[in-house]
């Protein structure tokens, strides 16, 4: 019976060790750390539907992260999606059922995404982003009482210490917090984002977080607790495998979540050779990032490590065989001796095809990875829409045949709003479909390639 198995599962995964049923009355706040697992019965349909609804929200959250969309733009994108699939109000008769759905769907996704590290990391990242968004848009009174109820053990900085550090505290955070601001002192590892962007004072291993930035602290807490909880769930998961009905649902849920790794066609039967790479690029099948590296390779006769990884995995996923790949890199690295090539590069190429070492082929990088990769001096990987100056980007686009100034400024606006994937997609539409909008945003260079390649095949067919 479904009822029994559900109860059994949840009791096993009970992280807090509290068996009391969570009743609607137990949702005092809109926001939640989801500390207690749900214990009431729901139908199998609800189980799946609620999870899918939450996934739709998380997909939108991920799109924002990928395109680096924050603030008001993020709100304008997320608000309708949340209202449709996962509303969470502050008052009204529906709040109990809304909070219940939020609570249950969160736990179902925990079950679906605890099985491996990648999925866990992804869920933590997206749930934390969703939490942050909700936290920022929460009613301030609600937020206050929510924080009070969390009982977090943060050390408050004494007035005396604040006085001694006054000047440094004032300069560390921009804009300067109010004079009477409350500060918390935590290990710097707990607020990595604030440390990384130098938004707080760091002294003797402690970060001094002003009250105005406590969102970071709470989000970090949320994230680390969810991370730990998922590990515990993962340990309990094997026992769940007994359940014949839940497992397929959960597997289905998590597989749908893997949309962002490239899963489109790989053209290994097209017989691409080392020589066809340049031709494919010239034919306009490569997105700007890959075009940029191909050109860099031709000019410099070399490409640095991250670039080789980004470009090499892309080529593997368009269907270039390992032999041709070796030939290609050998051919491009003109200044490198055979001896050096075999020693320093050939192994890595074979490794990326899963032929040596760990024997696991590398996934091609998607736009999330590429957008997040740091680009140092003399490196030419990464996302050009993010890395190039507006002038340089405009001249690149003109070279690709986009001359309409209105379109060029539209693309520039997108990049300035950090919507790089959308800019890239727009470029694809202009260069391939006469400006006709595509159904989806391109989220991986290989998607760009396969769309372009299919498009060319279709045009050829219709012309013959």
């Amino acid at each position, binding site marked *: 019976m479904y009822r029994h198995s559900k109860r059994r599962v949840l009791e096993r995964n009970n992280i807090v060790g509290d068996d009391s049923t969570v009743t609607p009355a137990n949702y005092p706040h809109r926001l939640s750390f989801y500390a207690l697992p749900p214990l009431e019965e729901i139908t199998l349909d609800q189980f799946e539907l609620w999870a899918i609804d939450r996934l739709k929200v998380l997909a939108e959250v991920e799109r924002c992260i990928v395109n680096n969309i924050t603030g008001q733009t993020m709100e304008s994108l997320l608000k309708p999606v949340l209202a449709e699939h996962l509303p969470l109000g502050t008052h009204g008769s529906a709040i109990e059922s809304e909070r219940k759905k939020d609570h249950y769907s969160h736990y179902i996704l925990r079950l679906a995404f605890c099985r*491996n*590290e990648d999925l866990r990391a992804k869920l933590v990242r997206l749930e934390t982003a969703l939490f942050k968004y909700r936290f920022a848009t929460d009613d301030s009174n609600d937020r206050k009482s929510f924080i009070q109820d969390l009982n977090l053990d943060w050390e408050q900085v004494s007035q005396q210490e604040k006085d001694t550090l006054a000047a*440094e505290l004032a*300069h*560390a955070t*921009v804009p300067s917090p109010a004079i009477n601001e409350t500060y918390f002192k935590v290990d*710097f*590892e707990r607020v*990595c*984002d604030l*440390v*990384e*962007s*130098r938004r707080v*004072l*760091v*002294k*003797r*291993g*402690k970060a001094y977080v002003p009250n105005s930035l406590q969102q970071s602290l709470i989000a970090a807490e949320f994230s680390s607790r969810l991370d730990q909880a998922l590990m515990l769930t993962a340990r309990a998961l094997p026992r769940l495998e007994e359940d014949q009905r839940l497992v397929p649902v959960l597997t289905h849920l998590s597989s749908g979540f893997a949309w962002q790794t490239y899963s489109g066609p790989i053209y290994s039967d097209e017989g691409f050779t080392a020589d066809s790479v340049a031709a494919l690029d010239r034919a306009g099948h490569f997105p700007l990032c890959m075009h940029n590296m191909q050109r860099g390779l031709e000019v410099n006769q070399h490409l640095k*490590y*991250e670039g080789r990884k980004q470009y090499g995995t892309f080529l593997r996923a368009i269907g270039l065989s390992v032999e041709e790949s070796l030939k290609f890199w050998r051919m491009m690295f003109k200044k490198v001796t055979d001896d050096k090539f075999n*020693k320093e590069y050939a192994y890595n190429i074979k490794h990326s095809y899963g032929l040596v070492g*760990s024997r696991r082929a590398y996934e091609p990088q998607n736009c999330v990875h590429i957008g997040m990769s*740091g*680009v*140092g*001096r003399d490196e030419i990987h990464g996302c050009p829409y*993010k*890395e190039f*100056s507006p002038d340089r980007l405009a001249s690149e686009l003109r070279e690709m045949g986009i001359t309409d100034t209105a379109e060029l400024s539209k693309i520039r606006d997108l990049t300035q709003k950090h919507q790089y994937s959308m800019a890239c997609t727009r470029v694809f539409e202009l260069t391939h479909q006469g400006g006709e909008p595509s159904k989806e945003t391109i989220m991986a260079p290989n998607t760009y390639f396969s769309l372009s390649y299919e498009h060319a095949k279709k045009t050829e067919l219709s012309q013959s």
Partner: protein
Amino acid sequence: MPSVDFTFANHKVDPEVLTQYYQRLFPARYLFQWLNHSPVPSSDFTNREFAFTLFKDEKYIRYLSYPNADAFKKDLLKMTPSRFEIGPEYNSNPRDRRLVNKNNFKTLSKELVFDIDLTDYDGIRTCCSDKNICELCWNFITFSIHVLDETLREDFGFEHILWVYSGRRGAHAWVCDKRARELDDKARKAMIGYLNIAKGTRGKVIDAKRPFHPYVSRMFDVATKDFTQHILLDQDPWRTPEDAEKLLKRIPDLNLKDALKKKWGFSDISSSTKWKDIDEVAKSGNIKTLNANSLLEAKKDIILEYMYPRLDVNVSVHMNHLLKSPFCVHPGTGRVCVPITDPDTFDASSVPTLNELLEELSTSTSTDSNAHAYESTSLKPYIDFFGKFVNNLMKAEQQHAKRGRENDLSF
């Protein structure tokens, strides 16, 4: 020191000489204690990855590990790696990694490491290029060591920081505190982001908000002191009209830029004169568009751009990144990668080479059979320094463990 040209020097490292070095001079015991944090072998050492680069074919062997110092030294002698690297401690023995599930083979700890290399200064340094270094460009490294060392101590609270000469044109930092070793990749990335004030993308160089964060303002104060001597006088990076473009590019006002260009014409003028000219031309008051404040801020950015520590980010952000061990011999220069005992007086050209050391050994007249061989060579101060460092680290570790036990008992 004169310009040290490492490219053409005769430093062919001979495998047999290297074996002798490993046998008689290499401080294997200290290296063991350094990584093990106690005299008795623990998983800190036994699950630690080593990677050897062999002479033959430059073959690179990863996932080596050793039960104790003797076994490690034995392999050094048997395989005579031209150099070797140190990786992280794993949750099981790296040699057995195929026996455990791939997902269960995880990194547990590794020193937080930093790598500064003079090749990253090639756009700025004029004294040398490529593989060569001299005392003028070594000033960049000295400055970086000071800034990083102070920040790691003051801001992050670390105490056990070992600076090591990389053997050619740079330095490595090993931060060995327990807390540093256990930082996850996210925290390492955060630290690098904090320390690195130039954000990646070309074109935009210095990314320092105003007012300066206390870390940046501390760096700026020191940089300002060194700037005139080290950059304007020693490096003189804007002397020619072409090079002056690099400076002009950073001037925020177009009219001022044109006025300066006109003034400097086509002849070579020293960088210090050009630097002064900026203010003089600006003060002459003919430029109406000029915003004095934005010029001042731009000049601050220029000082930072030419001075800030240039870190190899990838080395630091991943716990599983391997880094060449201290006391390896650099295969290209023959110099030993010694700890930098005092950054202010460190002189790369006086670092002992393998051949010099063996020479010293063979002429040693010491009759004291109890003495270690290294004591009669110029490696002695470096090994003694390393030994002291290791002892301090072990003491701190023991206290830490003791405190941990007491806390357990108090429950």
